[in-house]
């Protein structure tokens, strides 16, 4: 038996390090690795499930070709790349390179993903997407205000006297943070949780506040007004480091009384919150991503962030606004959110025309050339894009679809060719994190089964067959030793990053500020924290100041009275992991969740099959009555496969957020009804 240290490359805050034991070429055990200060106790159920995931019988390990009967049949890697290179050459020649769409998701992070862009640049520039389905409104809000997106090291929240967890549920989505929250509480730290759902995180708080959906900005700005009125702001800090405070102060028109009407939170509670925030000492805000998946998402994050700014909770221990910590994103020329919508002029020959939030509609609209083919990696756009019906329609119109994946996902089912994807233990790669401050190496420790090839090798072969002539410094030759050489070269120039050190365990990111902005250097146009941002106005056409904008709900409130949310859950990372036996065994069955009162009103019993619908679409699902769901809301967790009654995105209109080209998933409303037994 051999043991290695590796790191989880999923789209998740934690990016856990763990030890992995290998016997006879199989992963047999996952154990914690104490050398990572952010995740010393080890990974969550998903991390543990790699024992099954990497040995799963359901994994695709040979290329599959859709036969004329509609079923998939196994073909060799040679045959698959012959067909793909022939097709791609044909579309490029006859319709132009942008008749092919290259779509990537966040399925696996790592530097080797760059080999894809090398190939597609050489291809001549396919149609690609801009924006992101997850977090960009908030990223942009933080960038506009602070100049960059970062926060203190995760374990610093132990030093807070007050934690304001706003729309985040680390108990399910960032469980290692719960250890630090617990330690802070042991030392007497108070915890406020503001959320729509009564989550496990809320159970670990002193006060749980449940405002009307989408009104968080009003709540924050009412608190800001009390802080200003009662002299609880840090004026020395504001004078020195804040730009536009005067205008901001004048813009605070929402009184606690008005906020009570808007948010449903009593004015006394709002006042209590303000005093807690103003008087506690270091306060760390832990905002989530769900509350910025609204048409007012960016402005909401700016409003909450303003509370940390005017109380001076920036640049010191125990304080901060922990939206995302991109300090380990050292390899990017341009960091998110800017990299999500790079300047087209500067980025020739890429042609970015499709919005991730409006993928289906945008795909259907393409002309000159029309889209003919799609090449999909690390993603599951059929299930995960808003307005799934339109996305499905657009995919059906395509002549040729290639999907690279480990499992037969809802998107892979639409493919003409499926290429089996590597898993995290099969190719060496280097990853960062958006929460912890580490750069980590995940080594190749097992052989790839069947005819699985890493993307770098797929692209190498395609490039060769298509005669694109990409050089090996961009697209390394097959073989893990070549990848490691390529990676070593890639990290040259960072003196603190030595390949062999990374092999031993996580390394702190070069230039890390354990306490973000302790130097009080802000990379904004004014060099200060910008409560007033001209760029916000010019780039996104929103108020230069934070502000409360009522939701732009696409559905009729009377016809569709229930707010529809698709939050994340511990059992999956978006649509990954939900298919595994061990995950299904230990977590609740996939189901739409409804409050006790709403169920009673509709004569719905636990376990009924229900119809959920609005003007966008309709799905059928099992229902669970949940005491965690407030009256007036319905929850269907993100990432549930269609076969399990998932597909919440069929009910979600493709609408972009107010900034950052995110997707306003949570603006939608639905109605729900019990299906007759023969349903």
């Amino acid at each position, binding site marked *: 038996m051999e043991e290695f240290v590796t790191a989880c490359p999923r789209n998740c805050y934690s990016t856990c390090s763990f030890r992995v034991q290998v016997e006879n070429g199989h992963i047999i055990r996952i154990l914690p690795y104490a050398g990572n200060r952010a995740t010393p*106790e080890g990974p969550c159920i998903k991390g*543990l499930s790699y024992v099954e995931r990497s040995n799963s019988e359901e994994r695709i390990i040979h290329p599959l070709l859709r036969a004329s009967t509609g079923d998939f049949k196994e073909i060799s890697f040679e045959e698959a790349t012959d067909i793909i290179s022939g097709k791609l050459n044909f579309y490029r020649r006859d319709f132009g390179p942008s008749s092919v769409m290259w779509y990537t998701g966040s399925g696996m992070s790592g530097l080797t993903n760059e080999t894809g862009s090398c190939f597609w640049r050489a291809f001549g520039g396919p149609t690609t997407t801009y924006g992101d389905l997850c977090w960009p409104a908030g990223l942009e809000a933080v960038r506009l205000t602070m100049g960059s997106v970062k926060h203190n090291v995760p374990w610093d929240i132990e030093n807070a006297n007050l934690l304001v967890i706003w729309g985040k549920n680390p*108990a399910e989505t960032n469980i290692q943070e*719960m250890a630090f929250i617990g330690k802070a509480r042991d030392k007497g730290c108070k915890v406020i*949780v503001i959320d729509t759902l009564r989550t496990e995180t809320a*159970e670990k708080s*002193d006060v*749980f506040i449940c405002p009307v959906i989408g009104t968080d900005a009003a709540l924050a700005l009412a608190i800001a007004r009390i802080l200003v009125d009662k002299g609880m702001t840090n004026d020395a800090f504001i004078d020195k480091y804040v730009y536009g405070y005067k205008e901001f102060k004048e813009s605070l028109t929402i009184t606690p009384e008005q906020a009570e009407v808007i948010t449903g939170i009593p004015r006394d509670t709002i006042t209590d919150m303000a005093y807690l925030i103003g008087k506690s000492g270091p306060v760390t805000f832990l905002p989530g991503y769900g509350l910025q998946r609204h048409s007012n998402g960016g402005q909401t994050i700016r409003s909450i962030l303003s509370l940390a700014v005017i109380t001076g909770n920036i640049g010191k221990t125990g304080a901060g606004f922990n939206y995302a910590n991109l300090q380990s994103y050292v390899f990017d020329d341009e960091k998110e959110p800017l990299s999500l919508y790079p300047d087209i002029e500067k980025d020739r020959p890429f042609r970015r025309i499709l919005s991730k939030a409006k993928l289906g509609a945008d795909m259907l609209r393409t002309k000159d050339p029309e889209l003919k083919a799609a090449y999909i990696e690390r993603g599951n756009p059929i299930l995960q894009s808003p307005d799934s019906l339109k996305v499905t329609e657009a995919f059906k119109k395509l002549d040729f679809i290639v999907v690279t994946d480990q499992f037969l996902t809802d998107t892979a089912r639409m493919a003409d060719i499926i290429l089996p994807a590597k898993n995290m233990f099969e190719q060496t790669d280097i990853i960062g994190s958006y929460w912890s401050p580490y750069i980590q190496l995940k080594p190749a420790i097992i052989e790839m089964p069947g005819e699985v090839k890493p993307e770098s090798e797929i692209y190498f072969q395609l490039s060769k067959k298509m005669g694109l002539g990409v050089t090996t410094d961009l697209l390394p030759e097959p073989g893990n030793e070549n990848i490691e050489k390529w990676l070593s070269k890639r990290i040259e120039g960072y003196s603190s990053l030595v390949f062999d050190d990374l092999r031993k365990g996580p390394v702190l990111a070069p230039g890390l500020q354990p306490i973000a902005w302790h130097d009080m250097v802000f990379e904004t146009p004014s060099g200060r924290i910008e409560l007033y941002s001209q760029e916000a106005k010019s780039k996104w056409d929103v108020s230069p100041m934070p502000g409360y904008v009522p939701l732009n709900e696409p559905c009729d409130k009377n016809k569709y009275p229930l707010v529809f949310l698709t939050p994340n859950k511990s059992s999956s990372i978006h649509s990954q992991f939900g298919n595994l036996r061990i995950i299904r*065994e230990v977590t609740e069955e996939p189901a739409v969740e409804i409050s006790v009162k709403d169920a009673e009103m509709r004569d719905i019993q636990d376990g009924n099959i229900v119809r959920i619908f609005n003007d966008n679409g309709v799905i059928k699902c099992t229902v669970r009555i949940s005491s965690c769901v407030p009256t007036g809301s319905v929850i269907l967790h993100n990432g549930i496969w269609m076969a399990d009654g998932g597909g919440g995105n069929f009910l979600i209109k493709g609408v972009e957020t107010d900034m950052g080209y995110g997707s306003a998933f949570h603006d939608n409303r639905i109605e729900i009804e019990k299906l007759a037994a023969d349903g």
Partner: protein
Amino acid sequence: MITGSKLKNWPPMDKGFLFDNDRCVDCKACIAACILENGWTVKPRTVFTFNNERLTYLPVINLSMACNHCEIPVCLDGCPSGAIYRHPGTGAIVVDEAKCLGCKYCIWNCPYDAPKFDENKRVIGKCHLCYNGFSEGRIPACTSACPTGALSFGKLNDIPSIKSFPWLPDKKLKPSLMLTGHAQDKATTVVPADKFEPELKKTTATNNNRKGIWVLVLFTYLITLSVSAVLKSLIDGTFPQPGLFCLSIIIAGLVSLLHLGRKIRAWRAPVNIRRSPLSREIAAFILYSVLSCVAVILRMPGLLLVSSAAGLILLIFIDAVYYFADRSRKIIFHSGQTFLSALIIISFLTNNVLPFLFIALLKLASSFFSMTSLQETMKNFSLRFMRFAILLITGVMLISGRYEINNIVILVFLSGELLDRILFYIDFKPVNINDLIYNNEIIFSNEKKRN
């Protein structure tokens, strides 16, 4: 009195599970690690939740628990086949799957709901502390996997803090478990509370280890009748009809096999005769069956006397099986116990009015007590009422001496006793953490409503 005895020469466990409920968020990593490490087809570990209904005025408290490897292992003591043993190196209480009958007696005996019946393997699966990993330097998989540090494995201090866990059963067994955490003594303030459910909707606890219990009703009642028949014959100076008598004993024996997961291993049932009341019951049953059948077939009055004594001992052993498992002591005076039933059946059949009156009053008092002390559902209440009425009517018929006690009356009387036996099983609720959580939720919820 038969109680769980300490395994001889076993020092108290100095290490065990440490659990901090302040840190547990019900993430299930412990359960997943347990299954992945050991390939279980059951889930030996459970995260119990107090106030899973999330009543706004009560704290929500999680408790991850598997087997506590108690210093006084009642599962081991009760196990008839000797399949449960203490692993010498680690002190772990382990089930030997090759010896387990699947009788599920340990499920009754364990108040922590630790042993699980594996429907595939038809035997018990239970946490074994990952005892094989210790030699390779590993601690139990669940404890190393906990991502928040809520569950760990280490040294147990003398006095565990159990403030937050009024619903933790039977600390007298000395579980190797130490509980810390206190922040959740107070409920989280929920604003606005009226968006969430204020009422306790759950109507029953989740305890479900009663499947196939009718087999035991039939088995024990057939024996009760059989022993009564032997004693009646002894008093009357006659012999029971041998064919019918032996057939009923054979049926009882066969019926008793039905609830076993592995019927072929039934021969192991008397193995743990030194400690297990169930082993004693089975041994006494075998002895009684052989003696009484021989006595009846060969018409040997002396042997019939011996077998009647064996029969009465068997009935006491049957009752002891349940007494041992029911540490709440709620059934100690239950009128449906086999010994009491046999006595009243004999006095009824032999027309002994005085003893009948005495036992009948005892039974009526006990039924009345049950009616008032147990949480009575409407269904149970009506069963008990029927049982009450049958005893009263047939009793008056017997005592008054004015009515003929024909076979129909006897049948009605015996059906009353069968009903009593059924009620015994309904009332027999061995202490179990699931019930305790439920009962405490009701108590706390009522308390809050009063305030």
